[in-house]
């Protein structure tokens, strides 16, 4: 039995278990033990992977399982991991663990909530381990429906609107992705949906153009690239806390990961030719998200736009096509995933106490809820790229990579993207200053209780992950680097 299947099996078993659970205690036990197991398996997988590499296993993908699924179309259930997938799994399991803890005491229909949440995580995990285009698409779709329900039922504010918007836009993205995938399958002549197999075939350039645009835009919608980002602010702000964490921490990464694995890896020539268009969009996205965040007054909107800005940076880095920048992009993926999850977690905690997310309605919360306040500040500082936290490493790697390209377009776009460093500081400090500092003006706010133990555990796990990545980046960057070579070879052919 393949180790990777654990990542799909555990959520599935959780769903079954939850289905038969009949009291709160059992639900809590199942969700907690499931998420802890996931986290442990991810850590275990990391070590297994490092061990395999250490004993000299240089295969491109490890732990491969290949089961024919629908032979008529050469569809296989094909999973396997390289360093990138391993760290994405690690990221996902950390976020799943943290978000389960944050929603630990959700009041309405906890059983159903966690069932859908498990399905959502199964989709994400499956996505990261699949090597077959169809399997990939299957898991991408699998994670879509739960989002719609989770936001539509357990959300707040304009939840129906947001749920519909998110589901429809992401579905639109999926359609484009599907178009790209089928195009790749038919035109490559590989008679296989296997990523590695497809990479060996060259698709005619004029067809690659269409397929690249289609699949990149499709994944761009899922990954919230300007101008396809408009589901992000509404979706994030309406979603319940843990779903917000999951959405921005993992779901948006599905888009970027897919764009890399499918669009860039399989269509390298078109990627080279068309990169400039998307490079401009991505650089603008960075700048745009940051400035928009500056004008927001809702905490979740601020973070949503910050996510757009940071994810724009990620696409920007991918499209530079050099090793350093792409390494940076993956570091940014993990880093942003963790930071934004921490952000949403703390915002959720604040919201559950104040029942408002408008920064103008809050003041001086640091005094009453110091733990949450400190966590929020840490999230802010990490987000603005303070050394010692992961954001710094990721941004620096990206920019070092970006500065390797000397032509005018890259230089100008890099400078535009780099301005976000300052703007990020401005909006983060504005929020921190308004919400946490100052004196409390609302008398009710004096009665708040600080974080409960499960909230603390969730925050601490995230902070440790952020600080760990920020202070020992080499481990992860080496894992990414190991796995980048095939892609780079493909890009340079």
């Amino acid at each position, binding site marked *: 039995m393949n180790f990777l299947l654990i990542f799909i099996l555990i959520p599935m078993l959780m769903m079954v278990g939850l289905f038969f659970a009949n009291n709160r205690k059992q639900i809590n036990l199942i969700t907690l033990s499931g998420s802890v197991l996931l986290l442990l398996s991810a850590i275990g997988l990391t070590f297994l992977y490092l061990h395999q590499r250490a004993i000299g296993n240089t295969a491109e993908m490890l732990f491969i399982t290949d089961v024919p699924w629908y032979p008529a179309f050469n569809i296989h259930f094909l999973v396997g991991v390289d360093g990138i997938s391993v760290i994405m799994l690690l990221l996902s399991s950390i976020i799943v663990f943290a978000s389960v803890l944050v929603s630990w005491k959700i009041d309405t229909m906890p059983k159903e909530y966690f069932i859908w949440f498990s399905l959502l995580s199964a989709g994400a995990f499956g996505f990261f381990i699949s090597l077959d285009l169809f399997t990939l698409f299957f898991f991408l779709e699998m994670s879509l429906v739960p989002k719609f329900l989770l936001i539509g039922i357990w959300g707040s504010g304009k939840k129906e609107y947001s749920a519909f918007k998110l589901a429809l836009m992401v579905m639109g993205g999926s359609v484009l992705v599907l178009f790209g995938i089928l195009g790749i399958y038919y035109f490559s002549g590989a008679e296989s949906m296997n990523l590695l197999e497809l990479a060996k075939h060259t698709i005619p350039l004029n067809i690659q153009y269409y397929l690249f645009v289609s699949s990149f835009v499709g994944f761009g919608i899922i990954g919230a690239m300007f*101008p396809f980002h408009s589901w992000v602010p509404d979706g994030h702000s309406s979603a319940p806390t843990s779903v917000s964490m999951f959405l921005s921490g993992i779901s948006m990464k599905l888009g970027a990961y897919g764009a890399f694995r499918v669009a860039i890896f399989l269509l390298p020539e078109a990627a080279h030719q068309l990169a400039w268009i998307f490079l401009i969009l991505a650089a603008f996205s960075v700048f745009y998200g940051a400035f928009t965040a500056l004008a*927001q007054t809702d905490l979740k909107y601020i973070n949503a736009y910050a996510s757009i800005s940071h994810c724009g940076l990620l696409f920007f880095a991918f499209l530079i096509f050099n090793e350093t920048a792409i*390494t940076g992009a993956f570091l940014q993926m993990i880093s942003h995933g963790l930071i934004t999850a921490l952000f949403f977690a703390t915002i959720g905690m604040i919201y559950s106490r104040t029942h408002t997310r408008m920064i103008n309605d809050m003041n001086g919360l*640091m005094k009453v809820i110091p733990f949450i306040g400190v966590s929020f500040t840490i999230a802010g500082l990490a987000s603005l790229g303070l050394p010692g936290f992961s954001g710094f490493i990721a941004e620096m790697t990206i920019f070092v990579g970006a*500065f390797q390209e000397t032509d005018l377009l890259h230089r100008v776009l890099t400078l535009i993207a780099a301005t976000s*460093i300052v703007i990020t500081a401005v909006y983060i400090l504005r929020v921190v200053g308004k919400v946490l500092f100052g004196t409390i003006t609302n008398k009710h706010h004096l009665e708040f209780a600080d974080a409960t133990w499960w909230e603390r555990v969730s925050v601490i796990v995230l902070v440790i992950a952020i600080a760990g990545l920020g202070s020992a*980046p*080499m481990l992860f*960057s080496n894992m990414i680097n190991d796995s980048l070579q095939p892609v780079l070879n493909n890009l340079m052919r």
Partner: protein
Amino acid sequence: MQYTLLILVLPLLAFVVLGLVDSRWKARTAGTIGTTVMGIVAILAYYTAWSYFTTANPGGVYQKFIPFQMEWMKFSDQLHIDLGILIDPISVMMLVVVSTVSLMVHIYSLRYMEGEKGFERYYAFLSLFSFSMLGLVVATNIFQMYIFWELVGVSSYLLIGFYYTKPEAVAASKKAFIITRFADLFFLIGIFLLSYYTRTFDFDVLNSGNATVFAGTAGLSFLGLSLMNWIMALIFIGGAGKSAMFPMHIWLPDAMEGPTPVSALIHAATMVVAGVYLVARLFPVYYFFAPEVLHGIAYIGIFTALFSAVIACTQTDIKRVLAYSTISQIGFMMVGLGVSGMGGHHGLGYMASMFHLFTHAMFKALLFLGAGSVIHAVHSNEMNKMGGLRKYLPVTHITFLIACLAIAGIPPFSGFFSKDEILSAAFEFNPYLGSLLIFIAGLTAFYMFRLYYGIFWTKEYKHEHIPHESPLAMLLPLIFLALVTVFAGFIPFGKFVTNDGADYHIHIDLVTASVSVAVAAVAIAISTIMYRKENKISDRIVSSFSVFFKIVVHKFYIDELYMFITKKIVFRLISAPIAWFDRTLVNGTINSFATVTQWTSLQIKGIQTGRVQQYAFVFLLSTLLIAALIIFI
């Protein structure tokens, strides 16, 4: 010299421990831990200095040591960030300065901050700051420097905003962070460009003076300036931001909202001279590859010195006066570096600048701590709430006076020696520059004594309760720093710190010295006449220059300009329109897809009226038509 690693590790540990336990320990325990750690660090720093300066110059030239180095992050085969410790004359000198001032502030704060809420937090932040600043000065490469540069920035942010319930403090901390961050962006771009063309971050390689390192930039220029000039200018902007050079000086006076010991440590002695240290660190690169920028630094330095000295003459908040004086003195240091050459007598400016950095750190820390003592006694920052305090605060008074004399450049206090070297270097570079510098030195003497008289002489302010001298823990640092201020001038600084590592014997240029002392003496005299006793002279002068005075009091409206740029331009003209664009156009487009779909479906739905007769009609009609079609065609 592996033990130097402890200098960094100990404060970091202290930060982590103090930060984690937060308020679970008694305040005093936290303070003691912090202070003890800092004491050990200071001892280690002194030991390092002693062993380095006594043993490391075989053949009369100081060697560089890298006792510790590890690869931290690898970008590509050539580019990687290392974390390490670089021991050379200036880093050792800075180690001494930072650890000394930090230790003094730690001791001083034990009583000054006593009873404050968040005492442990305060010490945690102080430790964090000490760690970052020490890491900054021993950085082996420019990227490590940037990392610690950011860390000092954030610890400064945290400490300025220590009184987080005070809106001014919060605003000031934000301002400080954002402005330095803005400058750091340029620094960072400079680093990226530099590293791209030189394929290294290492100071060792950069400072080797080897032109092949910079071969990548040869022949490249942009807007008429060579690329190296651009890069070094960008890097200098970063330094200028931290060192509060015009026009990025506005954060420093506001930063005085933080606790006074913090101002002494961060905003007078250590962090704000990081920019000077950066230029000194990269001096060979500036000198050989970007001389135009180096001269630019001199001009910016002198303009800032003049500008802030003028403002300092009009301020009434004693900490703000000191802040402007700090800016002005950093301007002096920048001038020293800007006019310097390489090696031997040409390197006088460099040596002088470092010397001034050293002495300034001591006497400015002393001034701030003294001001803190005064504030502690009268609970106000405003000069008009003081006056006649010399009777109540004798020790503070004496030490403050010593510091004033030192900054005014009166021999034999340390400031005289260091400032005099800068003046000589400036005269050699350009006599006009030198003269202007002497004038600024005179202004310095004037406003410092205005401050001194305003606090300790003039008419006595009626206090609600009689001010009393500060406790011993606060006085000890004052006395220690006063002693250093008195005697530091006699350190043969040229023996230790020069830009080529070789020995340089300081000799005092008598002409320059006498002129500057005379100017200072006259300035002090004028100040004495105007401010020692309460009189109308100053008011009369103010009223005769009322317009000019008003402009100066408002700090030349630079703050207002910044507010205009940020509020009006960034928020109103960029951010708000983009947000509007996002909500209406981008989002509107997406929504319009939905609206159009819904509209279409409603139109189609209109056919399904729900009227049976209509259905029957359509059904029959269609049947008829189809039948007709079948039959007739």
